[in-house]
């Protein structure tokens, strides 16, 4: 369950030499090639302005790449008929850094939005939405309007909205930025539970504490380039193999972890955060 350069025969998302620029500006993402395997869990980090939000926009279909190929579930996004894009978007849940809640709708209606746009009746989903809101601690605020909520509460509404449709991919941009440590842990457990149920998770965060809590690969953006650091357990295995079997064994493990055709440099040796 790792973000990796083309190791999965049919990843949920595949980037192939993707570059992106806004207008005629400089390229802010360069030569990104990686897979998000089905059911994987990864963090995305990098300094401010490194292009994290732009990369997330490409993954949740809010922006088009300037070059390269992005495919979802084995299909090239650029050639997908427009009529199929809404279905694809429904399979991607997004927690925006700035929440993007609709201030004129109640908490309940905000969370129910992804279900409502599919044309489902309110009676079909009302119980599920109420249950989810109770789980994120907002059971008593279902009729409240977002401007009356604290930042943390708004964030939980945004998370509930992202997961209510049981998406196959969940993208969260700084999902724990506005909540206390306890609620942060609770939300992280929610993401882990969703991941166990098969949801592919990408969490963009600056919170290194959060990154340390989960043994997951870390995608780091820097100067438009992406570096992927394998999960801690995998790196430990490499180290142990290096010690036990010497150079030959290390090469074989490295070969297993990174198949031929790898076009992404991974910072396997760097371990400053852990």
């Amino acid at each position, binding site marked *: 369950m790792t973000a990796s350069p083309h190791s999965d025969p049919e990843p949920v998302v595949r980037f192939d030499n993707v570059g992106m620029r806004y207008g005629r500006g400089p390229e802010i993402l360069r030569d990104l090639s990686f897979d998000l395997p089905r059911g994987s869990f990864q963090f995305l980090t990098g300094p401010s302005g490194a292009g994290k939000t732009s990369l997330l926009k490409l993954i949740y279909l809010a922006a088009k790449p300037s070059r390269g190929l992005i495919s979802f579930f084995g299909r090239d996004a650029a050639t997908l008929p427009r009529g199929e894009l*809404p279905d694809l978007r429904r399979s991607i849940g997004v927690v925006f850094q700035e929440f993007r809640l609709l201030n004129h709708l109640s908490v309940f209606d905000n969370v129910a939005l992804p279900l409502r746009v599919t044309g489902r009746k309110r009676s079909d989903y009302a119980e599920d939405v109420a*249950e989810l*809101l109770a789980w994120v601690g907002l059971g008593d605020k279902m009729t409240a309007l977002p401007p009356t909520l604290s930042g943390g509460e708004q964030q939980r509404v945004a998370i509930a909205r992202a997961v209510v449709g049981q998406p196959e991919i969940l993208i969260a941009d700084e999902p724990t930025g506005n909540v206390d440590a306890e609620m942060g842990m609770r939300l992280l457990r929610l993401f882990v539970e969703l991941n166990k149920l098969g949801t592919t998770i990408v969490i963009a965060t600056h919170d290194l504490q959060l990154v340390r809590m989960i043994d997951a690969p870390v995608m780091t953006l820097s100067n438009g380039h992406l570096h992927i650091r394998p999960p801690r357990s995998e790196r430990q295995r490499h180290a142990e193999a290096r010690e036990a079997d010497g150079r030959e064994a290390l090469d074989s493990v490295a070969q297993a972890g990174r198949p031929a055709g790898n076009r992404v440099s991974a910072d396997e040796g760097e371990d400053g955060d852990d």
Partner: protein
Amino acid sequence: MTDALPKPPSGGSGRLLPPDTGRDRPLFLVAAILVFLACIAALGARGAWVQAQAWTSDLEGSLTIQVRPVGDRDTSEDAARAAEIARGLSGVRDATAHDRDHALSLLAPWLGEGNLPDDLPLPLLVEVELDTATVRDGGIAVAAMQAELDAAGIAASVDDHSRWAGAVRRAARTAQTLGLSLLALLAGAAAAVVAFAARASLAARVDVIDALHLCGAEDRFIAGLFQRRFFMLGLKSGVAGAVIAALVSILVSLGRAPADMAFFLPQWDAAPFELLLLGGAPLLAGLTAAISARLAVVSDLRGRW
């Protein structure tokens, strides 16, 4: 999850588009004014047509025989004889010979009263009214009437008013064309204004569009929201504009303006045309607004992935 699950809030779902907070008011006003002007233009064109119909009907429903004074003949007698001859022809309902005083009254506006010597010979007029059926069938044969008068030795000429009726019809057609052109221009302006307003409204509610779009709402779902909103806005503007247009027409009609002045003014008559126009205008305004809004929204969404 929790043991005691909270119940979902009762009542229906909230409206996906935020309520109007005065942003749409200018559009409401502009659309109402355009509908008002369009209704006035249409009612004016209709009034001109009805007026022209009445005038041409008057002109085509009668003939005038002008009896000229010749030598020693008694013109009054000739006029009475001409009326008698006219009455004897088929298709003529009645004929009235007017006397010298009538001729003087016709000249008075130009020459003043009492300024003509008593012995000045004046032509006299005979007014001939035709049967309705005869008028419908194209009038009577003027040449036949002229021949009868000539045979009787009366120096008279028959005028069937066709020259004047033609001029009135042309004027009515011009007024109608003008009214319909105005109607088309106003409808175009209304569509353009609504399209512009829809884009502005869209830009102001881009957060809603973004949220719906990224939640997987189809283009037609989002366009439908704006379409419904703008249909209702157009409908309300249309009702306001049409009601004011009806009131203005009624006031103009009650004012009883002289016929020549009333030619281009909207005339109220609770006829099917007026009722259809004033009932249909709001619906048309609503549809125009809905279609313009839909096109604007779809065009914006097509610019996204």
